[in-house]
């Protein structure tokens, strides 16, 4: 396989990571909503933790985007 095509295939495979991060971020917000609707009184106090979880899940998806960009434009 030519290196150029291998790079593009690798970048495409890295997009799987973005989809996985979508599952993760959806899980964070979904779980938050599910429990927030059970106990709305406690929901506001947990917003900081919600965004910490969101940031952690999102970072890993963004890393896969970085991998794709490095494969296409840098490597």
């Amino acid at each position: 396989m030519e290196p150029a095509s291998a790079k593009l295939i690798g970048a495409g495979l890295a997009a799987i990571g973005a989809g996985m991060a979508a599952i993760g971020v959806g899980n964070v917000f979904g779980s938050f909503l599910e429990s927030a609707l059970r106990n709305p009184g406690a929901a506001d106090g947990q917003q900081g933790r919600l965004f910490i979880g969101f940031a952690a899940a999102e970072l890993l998806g963004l890393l896969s985007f970085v991998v794709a960009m490095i494969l296409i434009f840098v490597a």
Partner: protein
Amino acid sequence: MATEAKVDPMHQFTIEPLFGTDHWALGGFNIAFTNSALWMLISAVVLYAFMLGGMKRELVPGRWQMMVETMTGFIENMLSANVGKEGRKYLPYVFSLFMFILFANLLGLLPLGLVGVHPFTFTSHFTATGVLAIMSFAIVLVVGFWKHGFHFFSLFVPHGTPLPMIPLIFVIELVSFLVRPFSLGLRLFVAMMAGHVLLEVLSSFVIGGANAGAFFMGLVSIPSFILMVAICALEILVAGIQAYVFALLTSLYINDAEHLH
């Protein structure tokens, strides 16, 4: 189709010297006034004007003062929830950080390209966000060592760790502490860059489809355009969330330095 001019989605991130300052140098380093610097300046000036309009200290706040006070109150709440009463002294830093990033993200999204001015989102560069992250990290280190001395290293060994686990936990906690500035800067930079690349790619679909005839315009351009409007709304949300996450994580790290969990 493949022989047409290829759209380069990374072109919008080019840093170029403005106003003929490209040969300015200081100690052998180029200090040209770039478009990145210009938009940093614009963000700072707009932020200054925004704050100035809300600092009239009227007894009955008007709309503008209400807007500014909501922002300061928001950050103050975040600091008092995450750091406690010691958090108040970091309010100026965290507030400036939050507002500067927020204004930079939002100004970079302005559709000024319609009138020929191309906004530059300097938060889509790791050099800019990395320095902001290093500033936060430096504050954590300085405060931690100033306040606790070498006891600060107990941050890496949580309470109640069994003795055999201490070397392993210490290394893991140390590594997770040391990658903080990278993850902090990387998150903001990649989130902004990804959004702008996505908008650029979608706009190239719109133009390319319209150029290829009426059929492709209906099939490709119009759905892409509708998607682009939705993504623009999403990008405004992301601009706010990323600024918030940056400030939130900074306040969490400051909490570690103040209280050593």
